[in-house]
């Protein structure tokens, strides 16, 4: 079956940005091919999965779910999940929130918007969190905040570095002020982890915005990104509506954010595992001199 969005023309640049294509998992190939939202090439799903979900024609990085990323980054069989069963409830009694949560679970096959645990990356043990775009676009509610806080607390206790993949539309509106408070809560846990001398590497993926950008996404020792990822505080639509003007091309894309000095590097998906492994190895604890070969 062809992707439904294949023939839909975007009305403007912003709309086309939202035309992400979900890559079916290899076990359930209900789609033979997808179209690249960037270069419009028709790609075989199989070729795409083999190429790290990166378009072989133009290098567009397709959106990936958390499990696919973990498979890509963690050494085989090394990921041990924490707090897997934690689920949100409707704390404020917000209309229709339960239904939204139910849909999000169905859509993502996850219990919440982030998957946390420990893993090895190229043999280096670390805490790992990966946000889930298909769960309410990785929005941060109390459970996401709690899981990330617990991961950093665990990593502090066990002197582990943390690697975190962010993708988020921001704070979760349906949990009101409680989700805003998660920004402070996670920031506190990151700070304690940092003050104890531990490394935190964040990889910002498309899109990372709002309350997640304004908290743990921008608090890492080393901040990386995938090519062309949208990274910002306010979303482009909100800015355009506020300013009543079109934004320049490439605004808030990883390359732009890099140029402004907020990213250490932009790393293509196929290179990320080796890159992370090298960084983790370089930040091993203890006296740097003891590693000298001279």
């Amino acid at each position, binding site marked *: 079956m062809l992707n439904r969005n294949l023939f839909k023309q975007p009305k403007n640049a912003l709309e086309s940005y939202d035309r992400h294509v979900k890559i079916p998992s290899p076990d359930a190939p209900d789609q033979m091919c997808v179209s690249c939202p960037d270069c419009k090439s028709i790609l075989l799903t199989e070729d795409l999965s083999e190429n790290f979900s990166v378009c072989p024609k133009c290098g567009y990085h397709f959106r990936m779910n958390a499990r696919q990323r973990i498979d890509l980054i963690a050494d085989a069989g090394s990921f041990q999940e924490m707090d897997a069963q934690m689920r949100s409830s409707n704390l404020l009694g917000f209309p229709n929130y339960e239904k939204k949560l139910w849909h999000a679970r169905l859509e993502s096959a996850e219990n919440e918007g982030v998957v946390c645990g420990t893993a090895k990356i190229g043999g280096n043990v670390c805490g790992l969190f990966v946000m889930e775009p298909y769960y309410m676009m990785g929005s941060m509610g109390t459970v996401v905040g709690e899981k990330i806080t617990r991961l950093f607390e665990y990593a502090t206790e066990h002197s582990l570095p943390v690697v975190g993949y962010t993708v988020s539309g921001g704070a979760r509106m349906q949990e*009101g*002020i409680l*989700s805003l408070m998660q920004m402070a*809560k996670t920031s*506190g846990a990151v700070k304690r982890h940092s003050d104890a001398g531990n490394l935190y590497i964040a990889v910002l993926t498309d899109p990372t915005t709002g309350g997640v950008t304004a908290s743990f996404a921008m608090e890492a020792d080393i901040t990386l990104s995938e090519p062309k990822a949208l990274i910002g505080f306010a979303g482009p639509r909100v800015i355009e509506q506020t300013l009543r003007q079109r934004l320049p091309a490439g605004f808030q894309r990883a390359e732009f954010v890099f140029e402004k000095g907020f990213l250490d590097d932009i790393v293509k998906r196929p290179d990320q595992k080796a890159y992370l492994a090298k960084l983790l190895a370089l930040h091993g604890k203890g006296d740097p001199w003891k590693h000298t070969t001279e």
Partner: protein
Amino acid sequence: MEAYDRVTAARAKGRPTGLQYIQTIFSDFIELHGDRRFGDDPAIVAGVAQLCGMPVTVIAHERGGDTREKVRRNFGMAHPEGYRKALRQMKLAEKFGRPVVCFVDTAGAYCGIGAEERGQGQAIAENLMEMMTLNTPVISILIGEGGSGGALALAVADEVWMMENAVYSVISPEGCASILWKDKSKAREAARCLKMTAQDLLQMNVVERIIPEAERSFSQICDGLRSDLLETLRREKEMEPALLLQKRYERFRRIGSPDAD
């Protein structure tokens, strides 16, 4: 009083602004400017002052009084340099062992091209992180609108107080209504759903204290705040610094935690 009426009251023309609170509660206020990186953001004022003779650092969003002033101050919506200025003053407070008092009144951090270019998200994130371990007592008072991350960037504190008619929310009711129901006119309903009034937040343990406004003049309110601040800061001063920071961490740690009471 309905939630949205509080929103209207919090935004009302003529409502006392941050600077007015500073000038009425404290004496000898000296404003200190600039973030030493880019510029001076008039949407946030900061400096040193005396609270009954004790030196304190004061920081406030300033919306501005008349139209010209409002425009100059960008209606209290700060750019990254505003948050960086605030952090610079907090670091000075830590160095000289003075407590910090913040007045929060903003629709939100400004969303514009320059703000994004200069790292609005990064600036707020840094404040959240640094305030959590700032080694001196911090009290934040929501005096009007507490809009999302832009408000929180001055509200990671040991205690957060709220004026009776102030509001504090993750998103404006208009923003919420237009995202959820594609209809800005449903802001009234959104305000109710978001639980953004002082009463709501006290119930959820997000704020410690509500400052009554009804039938009190501004100078009476400020007299009350002066003595409340003095009393609370005195109590916090006597606390072990490590304990103070531990309590501040736990204050936020328990919010939304399934282990919380």
